[in-house]
């Protein structure tokens, strides 16, 4: 697909004084590469069920100063108890209403690059990672030095509002030093009517580091959302990911984890609630590159109306990665005859002493269980709600901190009940 629509914006971007000149070579290189590969089409194996023509044919503009809020935005409706929040509004950092917990270094992209001696993290050459590199315009870098235990979670609140077709490319780096631990929440909200967000997140966990990563994508139903998540894990590190998606018209999460060090462990949990004609796609790759590494994927979707979904989960066990365990589960609940789900769990194993499993189920509410509840006096509507909530609870129960779990659970239940009534 042609990316000519993006060319004009790219030139505009290069001429913006407030973007650092030192990034230009990386931007240009990425854009040139993107021009060669183009945007994915449905002929690409990993994109068979997801049509991104709204993005490739779209005319999205880079965010201007005028897209920043004229007055301090009100974030009362997104309050979350006991967390420090960094606010980014249409790509613009809102320093006045942001705070960070003790122990966390919050760096700009440029400061981060200096820290890395001028190196710029580059992921695989997937089109959307390239697009992000070319257009990187916001985002934050969270750095924890060695032996830092941060109790209070840090949240980045991405707000997308307005009627202009803007595109933002936030780039988030999370570096957790040896034996340090953090809970990081990214929450995407707002009522934008035409918006494209292409986010790239780079996570590095050094030896024995721990990260709880909570991702909530509940922005408006009219946005295009691509999330590119790259995780690198060293020895004994532990990564717990929890994702809740109920927003966006098109949502695609590309999650790629590298278990590089022995005894590294990752748990990928995701829950999707889709309605109308939303399309939510989760593409997950976990690479077991070392022995004694462990991974789980637990991905569930609840689909209403004519919404559609994709699960593509791949676990690759490389040749020397003996004694690993890897489990994949994908369960999908179709609450409408017109909803559609494509599920493709895959295991690719090149080692011979491993414990792996995968499974996938897609179907309607279990009639026998529904009858069981009704036979105890619970009416049909309540019984349905109880069962669908139960289906979701299996994932929601994996949310790490009780306060966060409660906040997400409450919001989710309200949304679900609204859809079911």
């Amino acid at each position, binding site marked *: 697909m042609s990316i000519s629509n993006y060319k004009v914006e790219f030139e505009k971007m290069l001429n913006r004084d407030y973007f650092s000149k030192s990034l230009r070579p990386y931007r240009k290189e990425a854009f040139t590469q993107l021009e060669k590969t183009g945007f994915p089409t449905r002929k690409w194996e990993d994109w068979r069920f997801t049509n991104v023509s709204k993005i490739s044919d779209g005319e999205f503009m880079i965010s201007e100063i005028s897209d920043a809020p004229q007055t301090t935005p009100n974030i009362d409706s997104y309050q979350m108890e006991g967390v420090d929040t960094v606010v980014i509004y249409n790509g613009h950092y809102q320093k006045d209403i942001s705070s960070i917990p003790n122990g966390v270094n919050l760096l700009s992209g440029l400061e981060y690059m200096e820290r890395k001696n001028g190196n710029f993290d580059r992921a695989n050459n997937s089109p959307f990672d390239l697009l992000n590199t070319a257009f990187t315009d916001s985002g934050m870098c969270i750095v924890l030095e060695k032996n830092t235990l941060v109790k209070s979670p840090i949240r980045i609140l991405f707000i997308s509002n307005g009627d202009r077709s803007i595109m933002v490319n936030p780039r988030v780096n999370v570096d957790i030093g040896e034996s340090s631990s953090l809970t990081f929440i990214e929450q995407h909200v707002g009522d934008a009517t035409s918006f494209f967000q292409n986010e790239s997140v780079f996570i590095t966990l050094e030896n024995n580091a721990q990260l709880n990563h909570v991702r909530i994508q509940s922005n408006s139903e009219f946005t295009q959302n691509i999330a590119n998540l790259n995780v690198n894990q060293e020895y004994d590190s532990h990564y717990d990911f929890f994702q809740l998606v109920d927003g966006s018209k098109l949502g695609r999460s590309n999650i790629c984890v590298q278990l590089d060090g022995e005894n590294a462990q990752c748990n990928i949990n995701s829950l999707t609630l889709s309605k109308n004609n939303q399309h939510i796609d989760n593409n997950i790759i976990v690479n077991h590159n070392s022995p004694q590494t462990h991974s789980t994927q637990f991905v569930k979707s609840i689909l209403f109306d004519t919404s559609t979904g994709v699960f593509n989960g791949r676990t690759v066990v490389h040749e020397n990665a003996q004694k690993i365990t890897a489990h994949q589960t994908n369960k999908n609940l179709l609450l409408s005859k017109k909803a559609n789900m494509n599920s493709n769990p895959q295991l690719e194993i090149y080692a011979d002493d491993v414990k792996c499993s995968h499974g996938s189920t897609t179907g309607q509410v*279990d009639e*026998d*269980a529904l*009858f*069981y*509840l*009704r*036979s*105890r*006096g*619970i*009416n*049909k509507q*309540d*019984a349905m709600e*109880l*069962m669908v*909530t*139960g*289906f*979701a*609870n*299996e994932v929601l129960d994996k949310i790490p901190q009780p306060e966060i779990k409660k906040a997400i659970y409450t919001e989710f239940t309200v949304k679900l009940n609204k859809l079911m009534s």
Partner: protein
Amino acid sequence: MIKIDNLNVSVENKEILKGINLEVKSGELHVIMGRNGTGKSTLANVLVGKDKYKVTNGTVSFNGENLLDMSPEDRACAGLFLSFQYPVAIPGVNNMYFLKAAVNAVRKSQGEEEIDAVDFLSMIREKLKMVALDESFIHRPVNEGFSGGEKKRNEILQMIALEPKLSILDETDSGLDIDALKIVAQGVNDFRSPERSFILITHYQRILNYMQPDFVHVLMNGKLVKSGTKELAKELEEKGYSWIEEEMTEVT
């Protein structure tokens, strides 16, 4: 309590029950015995309103109401309970949350106030003791990962929490070891009262060593062909069912 009159039921166009007549009065315990595939579970399921069972003829009146016109939840609220032969697991649904929802649904329908979480917990703790279940049970998902015996005790727990007027126990004793069997029998015995009735469906006479039934009926080819007392159950255990078949042939 319940009066079943000439009940005919078919499943997927196959006639299973061919004219059942049975009346259970308040406080009575009736036992229904019979071989596999004679329609015992069909009778239990049709009474609680499972939809794949089609009533082709007959009536069932439950405390003066037309039972067959009621939804499954209304039947439960009216005081009917089935202890399932194979209780289903419901992943993600907490047992306590489910029990509380059920108890409150029944209370609400009877014009009573809903029970709050604290009162409910102390109530359920008492009942857990009656079926010798650990408290951790009610914090697990409904029936998920439960052993056979645990599932059956969980059914009895629901029964004594919901306090139905008529309880149907569908092979609640099957597959239980002797200790679990005693617990189940004791749970039912403690629950018996002049206002409560029971229909116990079983293959085996064994559980009757711990219970006092008022009547024993034999279900064969979709009909209740013989009725008697506890002695009939013993006779069936010793001689099997073929002598009844022979008796029937002689009559015809």
